């Protein structure tokens, strides 16, 4: 073939390709990413979008799980406190039974029962981060309010539920009435008021009724604590599963998105050499012609 050495377009397009490769290798090393625009690797781009969305979902679940976990342990503490109070009330009421205790002793016992009632009120009105724990879905105020003999539940029957994993929902607030009253006619607060009155009056039937009411309340709160414990374990399970899922999701994302630095740097130095070689070849191309030899 006849060669003229005049056609610049082929050398320029070679130079262009070398320059593009160099620029791409530089971008990979400086950004640390294999994929900067979708056309670098379209299917990797789709993987990146999906895995990032997956990780964002997991992160949101983890944040929910963390909040749920703190709330559940606060509620657990409150319920344990309530169980202790019931046990104490039971002992106090039992001590007031029969003809042995004097009137003075029974009055002292009645005083103790009122103290227990006040503590119970404090526990059932427990708050976490400014929100009542035992007032259902109510977001402010107290679960129970009122005066001796007239306690009213200010909360709601439904609860705030939080999704800690796909399709795994836990309640982070509780219906206080189901704990203190259940299917009884009155809340245990009112029962304690009646019990203290019965102690003062030495009313054996009233004291027995009070003890029975505390018994039933104990069963309710124990059941509630059991459910809560199961939820707490569920949240812990969810967190450990989410951590594992996030790790594998991040691994998939990294494989699609991140540059293998050793490989990228090798590629960069190869591209750099190729670029320099192309430049050198073009600069040599037209150095001499026949004219240099004709004198």
């Amino acid at each position: 073939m006849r060669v003229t050495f005049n056609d610049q377009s082929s050398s320029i397009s070679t130079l262009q390709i070398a320059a593009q490769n160099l620029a791409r290798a530089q971008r990979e090393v400086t950004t640390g990413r294999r994929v900067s625009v979708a056309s670098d690797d379209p299917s990797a781009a789709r993987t990146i979008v999906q895995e990032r969305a997956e990780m964002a979902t997991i992160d949101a679940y983890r944040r929910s799980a963390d909040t749920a976990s703190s709330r559940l342990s606060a509620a657990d503490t409150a319920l344990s406190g309530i169980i202790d109070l019931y046990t104490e009330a039971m002992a106090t009421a039992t001590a007031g039974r029969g003809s042995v205790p004097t009137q003075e002793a029974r009055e002292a016992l009645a005083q103790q029962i009122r103290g227990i009632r006040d503590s119970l009120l404090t526990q059932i009105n427990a708050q976490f981060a400014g929100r009542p724990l035992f007032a259902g879905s109510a977001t402010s105020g107290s679960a129970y309010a009122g005066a001796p003999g007239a306690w009213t539940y200010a909360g709601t029957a439904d609860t705030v539920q939080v999704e800690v994993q796909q399709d795994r929902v836990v309640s982070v607030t509780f219906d206080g009435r189901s704990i203190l009253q259940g299917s009884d006619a009155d809340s245990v607060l009112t029962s304690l008021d009646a019990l203290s009155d019965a102690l003062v009056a030495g009313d054996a039937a009233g004291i027995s009724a009070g003890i029975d009411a505390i018994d039933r309340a104990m069963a309710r709160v124990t059941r509630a604590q059991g459910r809560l414990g199961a939820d707490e374990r569920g949240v812990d399970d969810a967190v450990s599963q989410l951590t594992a899922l996030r790790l594998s999701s991040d691994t998939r994302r990294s494989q699609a998105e991140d540059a293998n630095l050793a490989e990228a740097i090798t590629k960069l130095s190869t591209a750099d050499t190729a670029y320099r070689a192309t430049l050198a070849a073009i600069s040599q191309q037209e150095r001499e012609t026949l004219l240099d030899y004709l004198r």
Partner: protein
Amino acid sequence: MSSIFGSLSSAASALEAQRRGLDVAGQNIANVNTAGYTRRTLDLQERPGAFVGDAGGGVAVTQVRAIRDVFLDARIRQETQGLAHDTAVADAMSLVEAQLGRPGASLDAQLSSFFDAFAALADDPGSLTLRDAAARESDRLAVAFRDMSERLGDTREHMDLGVRAAVDEINTLVGRLAELNARVESARGGDYESLIDTRTTLLTELSGLAGITVSESSGTLTVALTSGEMLLSGAVVAPLSIENEAGTGLARVMSGGQDITASITTGTLGGRLQMRDDKIPGYVAALDQIAYDVANAVNAANASGTDALGNPGGILFDISATPAGAAASMRLTAAVANDSRLISAAGAGANDAARAIASLRTATLVNGVTPTAAWGQLLYRVGADSADAQRAQTGRQQIMTQLQLLREAASGVSIDEEAASLMRYQRAYEANARYFSVVNSLLDTLFEAVR
């Protein structure tokens, strides 16, 4: 040689021929960098003798010929159509791709933030701060959809301007070709070859704008679009025109009153039309579908709950009634923008609505996939289209480079060759001058003899 004076004229013709050879070499060297220039050679012919024993009458210049490969020129025109199309598409695709943003840090990230905000609100439905955050993220999501739609729309308009510019250029080139044709037909003189050079260059330029077929019969050049519409026959021009489409205002390419937009598929014009009428509208439709499905699902979830004022929830987003144009129309309702308490996350069912909105992130809303997966699909489509266009362009470029090398091999000026020609003609000139002086001295001798 019949006489000694004949010898003189023979020497003179040779001197003239060698000088013309030097001129041709000089012209070639002068145009070594001229685009479209084809190298010239000098055709010489011996002058025959008049009778037996006659050495001949010297040399005659028959013509200055351009070394042209018509087949290669046609191949280059053919590839130029494809290359220009691929280049236009690849360039526009890189633009579209850049506008969609980096995978994982674009609309998909905004969708995640939006769902995150509602998940946080579901955890603590009583918090006004989280309500405000949810309203703000909703607004940002709507803005992100609108911006994306607007950017794609801008690129489409940009393509439309490109279409108009390309049609103008085609008409200009066709006009110049017509002028050239007239001159080629009338003047078959010394400027013939250079006119043909210019015409070849213009035809290549024209084929880069739109696919053309070129035919020449008895000196009349006819140029038509590949779809058959005549652009030029000899000096008669049939220019293209532009009509604005009703409603969209987009340019329709017209030829003799016919809309030929759909039949132009190659050249820069074809590439721009493909982007404007096929690719970009496809991407916008996919984006619209995501916006439409997300907005409606969120609206339904919000309407199923109760707001913080105790009223049944309303809608969060204003959105068009059909998917077409949904992304551009998506807006956080003014009511919610003014009062985040209208977001449903309280009262009966507590945070159910907020939780339902948050869990839409994993719901298969858009053509059977989640909203982010649908975005991933769009990104994949754009990325694959862009990579395809780049690959096609690179492939064509290589073919083009080869063709240009071939053309250069046939028609290009080689400095080495011309230097050798200069030498050859110079030496020949010197030798002929010597012959002339020998004949001249013979005459002198004769004149001395008769004195």
